[in-house]
């Protein structure tokens, strides 16, 4: 069973982001990039499926500029087998990403797509579902447990109200939630070896995918933060403030 794991490169969530002076984007010069947290969880899950003898091969794919290669190499060092970089410098929205991923999916013989439920930069949470719909495949989103049972995936989903267990036939698309696993760190020797793993560069053009984006970001802004209020010294003072000042009790 071959697994496709799409990954997105995002700014490290621990850094404080600044806007470009004209508000058209986020300042990304020299910042630290990471693999989107949810995608890293997808890579880990694919590796575990391989370690259990269920998956035979893990192929990574990402869309972005040339230096996304470093992130792909990190995921290769975690244990994926090969990587595809769809080189593209322009804006990518969920729709474009899903069209590119669908084209890549169709070139291989994949039984499963494992990917993050959302990217922590754009927070749109659409790409996995868009991809599934485009390929007319079933989906199981927000997974906190994934099992393969013959020709089907049995997925525990984190939904409002609790957990749902969904059984869908392969091939399918599964999107990962935070509690699925804790990703391993890639060991240093593996980082060196990863550079020798198969790495393909391609382009939207070569995949026959149009570059247009449908969601245009017109302006970005930093929301006005809340101001720190005051410290109270005791429960009695707190209760009195909530009753008399804030009037919420």
């Amino acid at each position, binding site marked *: 069973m071959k697994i496709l794991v799409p990954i997105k490169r995002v700014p490290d969530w621990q850094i404080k982001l600044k806007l470009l002076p004209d508000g058209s984007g986020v300042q990304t010069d020299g910042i630290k990039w990471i693999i989107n947290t949810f995608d890293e969880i997808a890579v880990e899950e694919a590796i575990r499926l391989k370690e259990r003898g269920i998956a035979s091969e893990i192929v990574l794919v990402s869309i972005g500029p040339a230096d996304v290669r470093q992130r792909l190499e990190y995921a290769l060092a975690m244990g994926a087998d090969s990587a595809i970089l769809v080189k593209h410098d322009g804006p990518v929205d969920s729709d474009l990403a899903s069209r590119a991923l669908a084209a890549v999916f169709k070139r291989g013989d994949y039984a499963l797509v494992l990917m993050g439920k959302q990217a922590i*930069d754009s927070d749109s*949470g*659409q790409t996995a*579902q868009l991809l599934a719909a*485009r390929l007319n495949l079933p989906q199981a989103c927000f997974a906190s447990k994934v099992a393969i049972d013959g020709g089907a995936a049995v997925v525990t989903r984190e939904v409002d109200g609790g*957990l749902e267990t*969904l*059984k869908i036939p392969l091939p399918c698309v599964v999107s990962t939630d935070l509690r699925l696993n804790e990703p391993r760190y890639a060991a240093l020797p593996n980082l060196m070896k990863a550079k020798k793993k198969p790495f393909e560069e391609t382009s939207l053009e070569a995949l026959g995918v149009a570059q247009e984006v449908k969601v245009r970001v017109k302006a970005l802004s930093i929301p006005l933060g809340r101001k720190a209020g005051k410290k109270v010294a005791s429960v009695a003072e707190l*209760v009195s403030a909530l009753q008399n000042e804030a009037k919420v009790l």
Partner: protein
Amino acid sequence: MGKVLVFVQHDQGRVLKGSLCALSAARQLATAWGSEGIVALVLGPGAKTAADEVSHFGVQSVLYSDSPLFERYRSEPYGRAIALAASQLGASTVVALANSTGKDCLPRVSVLLDAAQASDITAVNGDGTLKRPMYAGNIMADVELQSANRVVSVRGTAFPPAERGSAPPGSVGELPLAGDAELHEQPRFGEVLGYELSKAERPELADAEIVVSGGRALASAENFQKVIFPLADALKAAVGASRAAVDSGYAPNDWQVGQTGKVVAPNLYIAVGISGAIQHLAGMKDSKVIVAINKDPDAPIFEVADYGLVADLFQVAPELTTAVAGIRS
């Protein structure tokens, strides 16, 4: 512009408050985009009851289906039915609440309608662009959807619930499923094997007036129950949790507040033993009044709290419970 279709969610016929918020967002979109009015769709057991209710909220017509296909939510039949209803009702925009169901099925609708989608919008701007949070709410984006058909998911807490109107109700009719040849039970739709739902003993987290949330500092599920529950019950509040508390098994997954959990905006949010990581703040910083209890005076939660109490939670939370119980009785 065609009409705006609202996919209205309900629980056995009882319309979700968040869907009423989506309805008011739909009204704003209809105004900003010059749409030809609002229509609605309701699916699943109890759909007719919910459809009758929705017809009083200023919609032209409501379609419903309680076909066995929709008995348990599954992304594909729901997505297909929503797209089908949009084409039957002449809607070019589809709107729904960005809860787990809306997040799951709306992108499938986007593909079927070849639409651009904006997720989790918090405002409709006068120029027709939509405001939505990115980077865990650290940055707000104004986005334009550049396509004839459009799909929008709505952050419930950012819009007031629509109110029942006095105008005559809109028409209510059944959604004819024949329009989509693929909309019959298909193996690929899959099967829901079961649910593990947390017991709903308290107000719904997303709608509650008061939320009490506990963090890693509670240190065990027993402590969480012993310290957080009584305080919540004294306040008639919903219970929330940080990711650390959920990951450690102190609280069920659907209580998680934050970037990847639920977004809440109650009148009063009490964070107990929560440090205030940006991902947690993303889910609660629009609360009207925030109280933080933390023993570390430098915890970032105090930067957003209206009232901060630097203390050991195991001492002051029970004191607060007693004090509140005294007021409320």
